[in-house]
């Protein structure tokens, strides 16, 4: 099964589908990468952040749901002919099946440079939600 990395970027792209734009773009600035050799240790309050650029604008990201025993998949939710699948939501009323078609090795949430506070706050609140949900339902 093919493995992908999911980047949740802080901009709206009005497109769904395959692209070859990332062959020469959207590389990580502060990791050992095949194309860019520049190393930069971007961090905030000891939190290591991933730095990339979209059209020259710097964005910073942090991994989430990586160490909680979760495994992430890309799943098929419907065909393009059905409008219901537009939001990517699995149907609520009828019994449906999740069919994994690829693996997601890691998920990274990004915010624009200078908005790191919101990035960390959102990720922390999401983690707190998972913790309290686990307490209630265990």
């Amino acid at each position: 099964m093919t493995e992908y990395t999911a980047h949740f970027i802080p901009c709206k792209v009005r497109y769904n589908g395959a692209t070859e734009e990332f062959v020469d773009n959207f590389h990580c600035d502060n990791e050992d990468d095949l194309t860019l050799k520049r190393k930069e240790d971007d961090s905030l309050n000891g939190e290591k952040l991933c730095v990339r650029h979209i059209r020259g604008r710097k964005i910073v990201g942090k991994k989430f749901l990586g160490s909680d025993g979760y495994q992430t998949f890309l799943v098929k939710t419907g065909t393009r002919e059905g409008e219901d699948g537009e939001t990517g939501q699995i149907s609520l009323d009828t019994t449906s099946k999740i069919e994994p078609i690829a693996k997601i090795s890691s998920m990274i949430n990004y915010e624009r440079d200078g908005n790191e506070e919101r990035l960390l706050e959102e990720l922390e609140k999401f983690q707190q939600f998972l913790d309290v949900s686990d307490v209630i339902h265990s």
Partner: protein
Amino acid sequence: MTVDKTTLSSIVALPSALAKYEQHITVFSLPHPSNTSSKQRVRLMLGSNGQLFELRSHVFSKSCKYNAKSDLADDKYHYTTDDQPIKSVFLTNKEDRSDSYVIESGCFQFAAKYDLTFNLIGYYHRNSIVAEERDYTRGTTEPQTCGQPAAHPPCLTARDYHDLLVDSHDPAWSGVPLETLQSHLSNIAEPIEEAGEIFYKITSNKITAYLILKVQKILARLPKSLPMPNNLPQELSEALKVVMSVNLLISLIPKAAYSNLVHFSPEQQSVDSIQLNISKAFDTYHNHQKSKLISEKEQELQLNAAMTVGLSVNSAKQPKKKVVKKSAINKKVNVASGKGSIDGFFKKSKQSKI
């Protein structure tokens, strides 16, 4: 396997108990356990050992509805013209960068542990229906006044309960295995063993006892981000924590179950030797709220008094009389000239021409 370009895709994070089913996982839905009409059905998945997981959606860069107004005032979040959060997803393949994808929606889904007992409580209090969550803390919360109590069977086996739920509540209960239902029934029902079979009778007291155990668990691990004032006395601080823990359950239980929980006192009801006095905690919290409101009004009155200090009591009450300024009228006496005998005396002296 590569992603088929003709299908829509969604990102789903699954716990290890589900992740091993790489072929396909069945999702079914049940009515929301809180019986709140504005809430959608819960989407559930069955894992190994009959454990259930709820499939939830999340999107970053979006304000939660409780902070929506303050975030709007702070200009914290921005949305597209069709009110969608500004978030999309890029999928990159590290091995082959040309095999990449763009997903317009920034929404992803994840599976979290789910306790089916809440749905059984929802069925027990199925006549307790509210439109919105805010109705829980509004108006009467007296126990047993939140809708007419539903008729309940005296005692049923787990299999009979399963049939009853499928027939009279929702057909989707058929997706729940009998063993799973049985283990959750035993949380809130009195088991009666007779003729080699176990019969279950759900009781209000057992439901309250189960929910108090949940409150105690939440109390021990209350989320850090909840706003907790630092300068409160110890007793009040503890009461506030209990109130917050109870209110965290609002999203999962019907109003009738919430009302019974709020009015629970170990002095009046003896439930499994539970000592947590929720009723007293709510009373302490409400008394504090009332005294805070009174002191705020008193401060307002004192401030008004301070603003009017130095003015006589009557002066403040008597309306000011309008002072009508009378303009002095200069009455010039016009003397008719050129008619009388002494007119010459008033005549202007003619300047002599030199």
